């Protein structure tokens, strides 16, 4: 890799490394022509996908060059360890400043008003739904909830950059992706309440959404398990020539799991059209990033696997949009994975089971809520374009709250699915033994039904 070439980090080496890092790519793993054992040509690998398989180098004992199949690198006779570069890590791409002003006009995606308004409305509707459902858990109406406060930009910016048919594998804090894809409030609520309208048939805790129609794979609680799965799905999409990308969301905590390592490595070696989207929000429940990793975040791991990587300002919806858009284009065109680390902040608690004041200051949270929030930044942008004003803001707040409350009240009133749905879908067909168990419960309820909440369940 680049490290060998610059031979350690004196200041010059440091600078060299910084420039190199801005365009982190896979060039060092790209195949050298069989005849060449020279150092990796840094200019060729960038932006183009070299042949995936490392070819066998022509073996020549006359050259005093490394012959090892495992690495394409030069020898060095000076003993130096590579210093991990965490002090000044991979830079953070942004388009807007914290006041929503475009910094570099050539990076402005120049999206039409309608689209940007959809960004804004998706984020704010999500925010409103979060407030109401969080409250509803506090009141004992639903058993559990997770909010998305502060991360709405990561969801909407990335979702907007995808095709509607691109397959989404999420972790649990990506409801904005579904919101952007027009998943109805009724269905969000249905899943949280586990009522008869829940497509998931009441089997999982709240926020474990799934939607086949909108190509959003059902969420599961174990962390990072979706990562190698997303890679497999991307491989299948590649084989099918589907021109589809798969996007896989996960947090910086989940990125510590073995499944994350597995997924990255498989995606790179098997050349899969996948976007790995890491929401680095500073905390995994109470564990801050300083206790999660010692390297330069998640983006710095990408090149280690041979993956094109970038770090973006996750609270800047245009930066997220641009990065995802470009990653999508190239992932599909070049059949290679992309890693986007979106830096953001988890303003809310981890979940309704968490009180984050136990491990972080209210001041810290307020800073992000007030000074660097994806919704406010976009609102400033909209207002400066003349596409939004305080009057519309007031109206929209009222309207979105009303919509949410209506869906909420409806969801409350609906019953849960019939208890026999406890037994279906374990297999595609119900095995004989399981049918016996189902019948045994039905008989049991005939005698002891009064001790069970049958009134809340559909008959």
């Amino acid at each position, binding site marked *: 890799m680049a490290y060998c070439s610059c031979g350690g980090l004196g200041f010059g080496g440091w600078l060299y490394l910084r420039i190199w890092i801005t365009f982190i790519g896979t060039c060092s793993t790209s195949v050298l022509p069989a005849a060449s054992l020279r150092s990796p040509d840094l200019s060729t690998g960038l932006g183009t996908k070299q042949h995936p398989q490392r070819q066998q180098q022509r073996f020549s004992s006359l050259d005093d060059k490394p012959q090892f199949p495992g690495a394409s690198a030069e020898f060095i006779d000076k003993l130096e360890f590579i210093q991990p570069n965490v002090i000044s890590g991979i830079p953070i791409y942004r388009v807007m400043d914290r006041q929503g002003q475009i910094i570099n006009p050539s990076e402005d995606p120049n999206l039409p008003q309608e689209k940007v308004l959809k960004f804004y409305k998706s984020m704010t509707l999500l925010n409103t739904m979060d407030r109401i459902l969080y409250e509803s858990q506090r009141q004992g109406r639903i058993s559990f909830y997770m909010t998305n406060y502060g991360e709405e930009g990561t969801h909407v910016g990335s979702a907007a950059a995808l095709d509607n048919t691109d*397959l989404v*594998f999420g972790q649990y804090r990506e409801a904005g992706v579904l919101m952007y894809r027009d998943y109805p409030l009724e269905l969000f609520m249905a899943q949280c309440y586990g009522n008869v309208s*829940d*497509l*998931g*048939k*009441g*089997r*999982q805790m709240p926020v*474990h959404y*799934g*939607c*086949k129609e909108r190509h959003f*794979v*059902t969420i*599961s609680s*174990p962390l990072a*398990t979706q*990562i*190698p*799965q*997303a*890679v*497999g*799905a*991307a*491989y*299948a*999409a590649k*084989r*099918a020539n589907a021109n589809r990308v798969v996007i896989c969301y996960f947090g910086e905590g989940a990125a510590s799991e*073995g*499944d994350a*390592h*597995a*997924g990255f*490595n*498989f995606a790179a*070696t*098997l050349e899969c059209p996948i976007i790995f989207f890491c929401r680095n929000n500073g905390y995994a429940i109470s564990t801050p990033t300083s206790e999660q990793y010692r390297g330069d975040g998640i983006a710095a791991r990408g090149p280690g696997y041979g993956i094109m990587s970038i770090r973006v300002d996750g609270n800047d919806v245009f930066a997220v949009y641009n990065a995802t858009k470009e990653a999508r284009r190239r992932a599909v065109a070049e059949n290679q994975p992309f890693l986007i680390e979106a830096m953001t902040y988890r303003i809310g608690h981890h979940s309704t089971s968490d009180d984050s004041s136990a491990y972080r200051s209210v001041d810290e949270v307020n800073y992000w809520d007030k000074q660097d929030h994806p919704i406010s930044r976009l609102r400033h942008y909209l207002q400066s374009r003349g596409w939004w004003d305080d009057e519309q803001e007031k109206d929209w707040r009222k309207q979105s709250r009303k919509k949410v409350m209506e869906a909420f009240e409806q969801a409350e009133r609906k019953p849960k699915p019939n208890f026999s749905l406890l037994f*279906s*879908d*374990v*297999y*595609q*067909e119900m*095995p*004989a*033994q*399981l049918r016996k168990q189902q019948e045994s419960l039905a008989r049991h309820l005939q005698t002891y039904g009064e001790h069970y909440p049958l009134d809340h369940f559909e008959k």
Partner: protein
Amino acid sequence: MAVAAAIACRLLRLRAAGAGGHWRRLRGAGLPRGFLQPASAGEDAAQWRRVAHFTFQPDPEPLEYVIFGEDVAFGGVFRCTVGLRDKYGKDRVFNTPLCEQGIVGFGIGIAVTGATAIAEIQFADYIFPAFDQIVNEAAKYRYRSGDLFNCGSLTIRAPWGCVGHGAVYHSQSPEAFFAHCPGIKVVVPRSPFQAKGLLLSCIEDKNPCIFFEPKILYRAAVEQVPVEPYNIPLSQAEVIQEGSDVTLVAWGTQVHVIREVASMAQEKLGVSCEVIDLRTIIPWDVDTVCKSVIKTGRLLVSHEAPLTGGFASEISSTVQEECFLNLEAPISRVCGYDTPFPHVFEPFYIPDKWKCYDALRKMINY
């Protein structure tokens, strides 16, 4: 499908028996433990050839089948996938990095899109890193999504069971760990003919399946196998020998042991044994086993895996519930000891025919 059939028949070496016929003759019948034929003893080595079932198959099947795992590309450490890459291409038959959790997770992802994935785990002993993906993900995919999503087109294959010298990490039979997991199917064949039919059924089954292949039988078992594809149903045990006095149940290699025990019992004790190959561990065929025990009144279950928590306990528990008044003797389990699988002590560890015979004798005399 041809890929699958080819894989199924890759499980054993085949001697080209000359031209003609749609049957390919394979070496010998399923052999009891310890009776491994030395390779090519007294045979012309040049006549030994790789199984080439796929060359006799028409190739109309859909192009979505892929097979992958560690070392699958060159043919696999047990040669199960030899020739497939040349025939089907490198995007369908390929190596993965050395990572079982990745192999299974990746396979699940392929299956979620509807394509068929055949994931190979190099030894069943190494399946444990994938346990989370199998139990928490694959098994629950359909249920937790309300049938919006599933990974039914995933089959995981792994060499399984003792082989004479495998020791701690090349001999394990982990079926009991997975038996406790609703949502997957676990299948163990006893012979080449069974292997092909059961594997094809697993691959076509709309639920994620684990197919454990008794590795000792890769070499030792030889049998006539039809060239065309055929299915053997899952969750159906097979009564391979009828009898009236004792029911013997096993799966995989151990079926051959109990079959020999059945002859010993007939010869030395005049006892008639009903021999059942369970074939599918979950969901298992309760009816066939119970029907047999109702007839015979005695049950002996045998497996290599350790006694405690082994699958014999599930069978025993269910049978005593269903057939209590029919039992003439306590149900007998002849299993491996509650130790890791030893190396030099293997001959003492395994539930061989003498231990099974002795347990049977005690049951008869109860």
